[in-house]
């Protein structure tokens, strides 16, 4: 089993926080059996704690990851094309978070009111904007994936979420317990922050 796979499995688990091998494999776009083996090995090494098919990175594993990131992603962190794509990602992020906010609350003079999704035109307008931003996201994630090909898996997951939204499953805009557009984007954001050693600003 490759060292790279071991590292990636723990990294993917760290992004997800607590997950089964299937979810981690899905996030990384890797084979589930291989990820399972890697997580079991990491459990024996004390880097991961597991119970009933769910795994979590242990404090030892977190410390190990923190040491590994600058080494594994040394090239990525100095790759001008990737860091430029990341800056772009942050700008799309700002627009997307504003969109999620407009999806959840509607601005009015003097404040805002919760969107109860009773106005189909309003919702379609937001979904239309999501389509625009999804096209921007495709381009920016595509550029990130040129440097780190596994990131293109996020693009597939974003596409799936967007398709569901378009088909009327509107929970997939910003729902929490599901792979909504926001959930996937949030994980991608976390993944990039870890890769590039940046700090979250909010």
């Amino acid at each position, binding site marked *: 089993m490759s060292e790279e796979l071991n590292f990636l499995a723990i990294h993917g688990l*760290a*992004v*997800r*926080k*607590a997950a089964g091998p299937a979810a981690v494999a899905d996030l990384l776009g890797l084979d589930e059996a291989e990820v399972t083996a890697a997580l079991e090995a990491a459990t024996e090494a004390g880097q991961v704690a597991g119970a009933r098919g769910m795994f979590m990175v242990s404090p030892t594993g977190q410390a190990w990851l923190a040491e590994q990131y600058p080494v594994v992603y040394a090239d990525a962190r100095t790759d001008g094309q990737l860091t430029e794509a990341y800056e*772009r990602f942050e*700008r799309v992020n*700002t*627009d997307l*978070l*504003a969109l*999620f*906010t407009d999806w*959840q*609350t*509607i*601005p*009015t*003079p*003097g*404040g805002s*009111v*919760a969107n*109860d999704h*009773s*106005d189909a*035109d*309003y919702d*379609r*307008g937001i*979904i*239309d904007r*999501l*389509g*625009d931003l999804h096209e*921007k996201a495709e*381009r920016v994630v595509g550029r990130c994936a040129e440097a780190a090909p596994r990131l293109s898996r996020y693009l597939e997951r974003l596409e799936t979420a967007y*398709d569901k939204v*378009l*088909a*009327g499953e509107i929970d997939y805009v*910003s*729902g*929490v*317990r599901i792979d*909504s557009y*926001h*959930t996937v984007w*949030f*994980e991608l*954001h*976390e993944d990039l*922050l870890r890769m590039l050693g940046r700090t*979250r*600003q*909010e």
Partner: protein
Amino acid sequence: MSEHRVIILDGSEQPTRDLIGGKAWSVARMMSLGLRVPPAFVLPVSECRRYLDADRALDDQLWQQVLDGVANLEQRADRRFGDPNAPLLVSVRSGAAVSMPGMMDTVLNLGITDDIEAALAELTGDPEYARDTHARFLHAYGDIVLKADLDSYVSGPTADEMRAAVLKDTGKEVPTTPLEQLRGAISAVFDSWNSSRAKAYRKHWGIAEAGGTAVTVQMMVFGNLGQASGTGVLFTRNPLSGEPEPYGEWLPGGQGDDVVGGTHTVQDMITLKNDQPAVHEELLTWAQTLEREHSEVQDIEFTMEQGRLYLLQTRTAKRSPQAAVRIAVDLVDEGVITPDDAIARVTPEQMRNVMSPRLDPQHSEQHRVASGEPACPGVATGIGVVDPDEAEARSRAGESIVLVRPTTSPNDVHGMIAAVAVVTDLGGSTSHAAVVTRALGRPSVVGVGDGVAETLAGKVITVDGEGGHVYEGEMPLLQTRVDEDPRLSRFAAWAAERSPLNVIEAAPDGVEFVDLDALGLGVATDHHHTTPSRDEITAALQGASMARGTLLSTPDGVAAAIAAGVTTVVAKPALPVQLMAARQALDLA
């Protein structure tokens, strides 16, 4: 006489929504009410079909009629397309009968050129505004019409820089003459019918491919033209309190999206009344006309140019739950709508919100320990915990936990789910934390300041997600009482008259009732359980005359109770359930 392929909108006729799209239809309707709306013309939906069937060709006859339409606008506006001395600028927007993702966005200020930018700088005495208007147009044209990959517009670049950015990405130039710009924008609107997003949407929803979108071309009003100009929004009633007073915001010297975008400091209506009493009075009169016409509160966009008022758009106003109740009752009292309409206009969810307990500001003030941006409304009390794993574990053990974090990552989401409220040091109302808490319905305050969340750990705190404050200790809450509020009482009476169920808050002593919760029939909170179906609930309630349970606050539960012949439901608060039953009796969702 040649066929009319372009429709001039001047209020003399009202073409159908199917023909010209919703926005243009609304413009025509405002015109026919005698209200001043910027002059406009429309290429109807049928022209989109023709264009697409002709392999995307704008034929000469159609183009000639577009030119006639422009001439009509020029005459009505007393300005000319491309003339620096009296420039006519237009907006170009798409408009299908039903709005649909993928249709082209609006291009504003089309018709601006280098010469006109210079002239506008002179005319307005504001070169910065002229430059910004020009750059913003080029950005929109590049982004929307030429499909350039550009970041969202940020003020700063000059027209030349913006043109260069568009050229670099697309290899195409933004046309330099207004008529070429117009031709390009019209074609782009028609083409957007066949965008991949629009096609995907129609496929999902079974909308016919053979339709099309209209194109509306409308004069731009210069909200920046010297004194007595500006732009704003007016709600015919206060959208937060529901008070029957027009409520709005405006931006002196602003244009179009400036107010909605929220990037500028806006003025209130009193300032408008003082600065421009005539405009203010006209605006209120027109607003009243529109509210009467629609029998519903309106959200109106307006722009004024040198003291001349124009209405741009009107639509049904969004409102807070409190405002929804007050407005519905007031409109019945004013004879505008019936009690049935009032029942239809307040959802059970809104009523639940109205009935939820609120903080007593006078009592809490002295206990305030932190303030930030309100991110999700609601009030909750719990013990501050920083670590999300600890929050989850203690919540599982039955404690009420407030997650207090410097920032939040996906690693914290399980802690946010477990918590009753969330507080973060950093971030604003559009942060990941804010988005997640709103999706979960957890009261939250974000951006309380670096290091503050840590100081809240281990303390019992009360979070007010409406006001954006955190208080130490458990704050007493004010219960909303229906009998103390005359409007709520009247609304409750209408709901009771229409409801087949009697809903009470406590079961009388000694009366037997079916308790669905005690039977293990409840609302599923995770994927290990499923919520019983309507039929299953009906079966469980068969033969009972009185019942209670969390399921009876859901539409299926209420329908089941009615179907099973239950006469009385015990629920607290009663009014949302009573309303749900009344709405079902009226065949409302």
